[in-house]
């Protein structure tokens, strides 16, 4: 896509409950900012799915639907980079232990594709342990073609 010269930088932050409704609202919020930032339909689909998968990881695998735990969500763009951060308060997990969903022995698994899809759809993806607990993921989509 073309460099975004006409759209105003924007940051939106939310503290969300650990529910599937939060997954929907985070996806909608991310897409509304991405639309204003000028992404095309193909990129919007990729961003929406990456946000959905990340939020599902936070709500389901991280916070395990706990009503006592929140998901911190932020989306920002500055004309060059569109960045999403999603942080849960869960126990965390070993990033290196994730099985490769494309390996022949894993192809017929019914789960384990979420992070692979996020990596496929975004330009940058980073996972970090938070202190004292939780995991924060950062997703970046470039607003200028590489």
């Amino acid at each position, binding site marked *: 896509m073309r460099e975004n010269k006409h759209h105003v930088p924007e940051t939106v932050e939310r503290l969300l409950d650990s529910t*599937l409704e939060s*997954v929907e609202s985070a996806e909608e919020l991310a897409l509304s900012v991405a639309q204003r930032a000028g992404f095309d339909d193909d990129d919007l*689909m990729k961003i929406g*799915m990456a946000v*959905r*998968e990340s939020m*599902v990881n936070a709500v*389901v695998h991280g916070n395990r639907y706990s009503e006592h735990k929140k998901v911190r969500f932020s989306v920002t763009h500055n004309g060059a980079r569109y960045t999403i951060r999603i942080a849960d308060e869960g126990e965390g997990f070993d990033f290196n232990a994730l099985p490769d*969903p*494309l390996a022949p022995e894993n*192809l*017929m*698994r*019914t*789960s384990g*594709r*979420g992070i*692979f*899809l996020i990596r*496929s759809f975004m330009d940058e993806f980073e996972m970090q342990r938070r202190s004292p607990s939780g995991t924060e993921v950062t997703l970046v989509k470039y607003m200028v073609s590489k």
Partner: protein
Amino acid sequence: MSVKLSTRQVGDVSVVDVAGRITLGEGSSMLRDLMREMVGKGQKKILLNLGDVSYIDSSGIGELVSGFTTVTNSGGEMKLLNLNKRVKDLLQITKLYTVFDVHEDEAGAIRAFA
């Protein structure tokens, strides 16, 4: 809109017309329950028409895999029909496109069942 599932019979093939979103939650669980119900009733030839599926996430992909395994393990066959570009792209990047028997026209898909 969540998922909407309609079933019809064409000869001995059970066609499931799927519309809407196959995502974690209601969409995935409805599809899972229907597939298990059909297999439980002894239906061996199942064609999933995904032509009106607007969105599918990794959970939905998992349900397609689960359904395929359930039907195959019961001695049946499951095929996919009318994938839109997004679903097709997803199955291709997850290397599942060649696992499923995918068709673009219903009559051909019906004939392809053994």
